């Protein structure tokens, strides 16, 4: 069975949701406290949403110095599957594991609403079971979700097929409607929308399943 570690920083708040979602897909999931120094035995790691360290200074700015982040970097370098959701995405950019940065939303307010995403690349651990052009209804829930990068970085994202998901209607001013990106290898992915909140029609949408199924299945296939 796939083992997934869900990293918990003080101030994380979607850790139970992420754990619940991947467990429901058959993964064996457990919390990893931010002071952990290794991630041995895990097939994949999720950095969940929330407000690590209160999001003080900048989202992710303090969390990236947690001991676990060196282990996450090591894990990623070795080809392990890493997924940053919302605040987790912000942490990954601050830590330099993903390019770009996330700024305050264009409208300067927090946004909690459903969005429609299109799958732009299937070369990542998050989208390998989806198809290019597939539309998914998945909620966003963030204050600082406007993806920003310089022209050079953007050109490189395009060239390496690293833009994983785009918003159909840009809610926050993200450059090029970007909702999620991966590293060049496709094993580290970050996205602002919350696939774990779209796991059942009782709660409005089950479109997040295909993403988390890809992720949960990915590490096993990758090794």
């Amino acid at each position, binding site marked *: 069975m796939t083992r997934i570690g869900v990293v918990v920083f003080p101030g994380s708040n979607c850790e139970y949701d992420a754990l619940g979602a991947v467990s429901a897909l058959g993964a064996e999931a457990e919390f990893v406290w931010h002071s952990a120094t290794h991630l041995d035995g895990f097939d994949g790691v999720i950095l969940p949403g929330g407000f690590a360290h209160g999001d003080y*200074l*900048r989202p992710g*700015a*303090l969390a990236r*110095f947690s001991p676990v982040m060196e282990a996450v970097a090591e894990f990623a370098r070795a080809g392990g599957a890493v997924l940053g959701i919302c605040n987790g995405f912000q942490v990954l*950019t*601050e830590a330099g594991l993903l390019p*770009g*940065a996330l*700024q*305050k*939303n*264009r*409208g*300067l307010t927090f946004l909690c609403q459903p969005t429609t995403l299109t799958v732009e690349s299937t070369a990542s651990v998050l989208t390998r079971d989806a198809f290019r052009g597939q539309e998914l209804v998945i909620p966003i829930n963030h204050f600082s979700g*406007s993806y*920003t*990068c*310089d022209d050079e970085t953007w050109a490189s994202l395009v060239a390496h097929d690293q833009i994983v998901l785009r918003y159909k209607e840009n809610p926050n*001013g993200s450059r090029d409607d970007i909702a999620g990106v991966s590293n060049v290898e496709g094993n580290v992915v970050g996205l602002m929308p919350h696939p774990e909140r779209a796991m059942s029609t009782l709660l409005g949408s089950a479109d997040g399943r295909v993403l988390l199924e890809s992720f949960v299945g990915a590490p096993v296939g990758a090794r």
Partner: protein
Amino acid sequence: MNYPIIVDVTLREGIADPEGATIERALPALGFNGISHVRAGKSFRMNIDAEDESSALAIAAALAQRLLSNPVIENATARSAAKG
């Protein structure tokens, strides 16, 4: 000795500043005209134990680079809070 230092963090040229833009848009309605190029930034004031002021400033500059700013989008500079 203990030196009061301020680190100013500003958005890099070319990075969009929704906060500055929003303030600028609101100004005419409040009766403020002729104000342009509003940019929002952050500042951090702190006291630093160091040999002398220039070492304190060096510590602050290192802190500014490492923690207080995100170089992908921001610039940071340290200055003495004692002056002016």
